[in-house]
């Protein structure tokens, strides 16, 4: 089936088999390998992308379902060499270890902060409930998201990310 999908602002498309999963369309057809396949069952969130403003798990969506929609992936969040505040937060606060969950974590965190740029620790943990991390124990991920929130609010990000209790 012929599809047309906007990915990070660029119109993409082509003929895909209906059974092609969105994550494979992104990785194999477009070469955007930042979106990871972790569990392939809908549970881990490593494949999270933003479709028309809402996070979805791209391993559990067909590319044909995304026809005509607008998608953001991890490749689209930085502006040139300038990291997105959430990327900077993960960098500054050591929000990753192996990094496998990180692209999905960042997409969920961006969606969270778009709705609420001053989330409490509980709100951050709730906002990333659909993303599993085997390495960090989530503590530094929470700090990273709060760092990004402060930066987006125009406050001192170093101060904001210290507040999370250990």
């Amino acid at each position, binding site marked *: 089936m012929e599809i047309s999908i906007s990915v990070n602002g660029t119109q993409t498309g082509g003929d895909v088999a209906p059974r092609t999963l969105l994550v494979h369309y992104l990785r194999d057809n477009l070469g955007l390998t930042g979106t990871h396949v972790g569990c392939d069952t809908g549970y881990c969130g490593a494949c999270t992308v933003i479709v028309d403003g809402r996070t979805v798990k791209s391993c559990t969506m067909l590319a044909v*379902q995304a026809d005509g929609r607008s998608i953001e992936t991890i490749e689209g969040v930085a502006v040139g060499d300038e990291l997105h505040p959430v990327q900077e937060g993960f960098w500054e606060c050591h929000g990753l270890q192996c990094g496998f969950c990180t692209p999905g974590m960042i997409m969920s965190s961006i969606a969270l902060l778009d709705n609420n740029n001053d989330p409490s620790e509980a709100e951050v943990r709730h906002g990333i409930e659909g993303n599993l991390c085997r390495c960090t124990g989530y503590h530094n991920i929470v700090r990273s998201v709060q760092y990004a929130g402060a930066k987006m609010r125009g406050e001192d990000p170093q101060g904001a990310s210290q507040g999370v209790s250990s």
Partner: protein
Amino acid sequence: MYPANFEYVVPSSLHEALTVLSESENAKVLSGGMSLIPLMKMRLVRPTTVVDISRLPGLDTITDEGDHIAIGALVKHAETGSNALIREYATALAQAAGVTADIQVRNQGTTCGSIAHADLAADQPAAVLALGAVMVADSVRGQRQIPAADFFVDTLTSALADDEILVGIDIPKGGRSAYAKLGRRGGDSDYPIAGAAVWIQGTDGSVADARIAVTGVSSKPYLASAAAEAVIGGNGSSDAIATAASHATDDVVVLEDLYGSVEYREHLAGVYVKRALEDVLA
């Protein structure tokens, strides 16, 4: 994991969708895909035709119809969980939708899809049972209404025929309701090991009528009528609540799996009936 090949149909009207379903041997409705796509990837389901209803116009609304609230087929869990009408008139369903799966799944999965899928441990079926909702099913043969109490037949089996689409759910107004669960991972996210929805009607603490539904413990979500009888006609005393909780699994076969033994599930069913009752009577 890839699904087996299938023909993908995007109908432009409900009539077209129903016609395709009536003419196909092995067709499946695709809505949010949060249950169907995993099943197709594991090749547990191999439809030859997939009818994607998610772009059908006019089915994504929640409306106040006077004596009931109408939820369209395409309303997603996230919307059901946050919508003001559902929160006011169908609190248990709003609560159940709000704790169904995780944010990404709630952004994509639909309330009607969860009901039609009829998983033995799904959250929202318990709420529609307790609320006395009516399922509206449509096919080329015509529309019919199915009371929630008759809708859940067995594990992954509803009263819908293969050529029918669940086009909406009507929830009668009146009374108060609540839902409580223990998810498999401890918190709310993920399917319940046990969950309970309760609905009561009455004034000043007296309980004139009640329905209590339990999910996650048996082969399907069910109405625990002995539990409801324990609170009907009373004043919601802690004794009555304790008695209701002790009848949470009467007349059903409690199943066990890696998340919990029969004894543990019987215990949890009572605990969550109690918590939901305390919430609604508070």
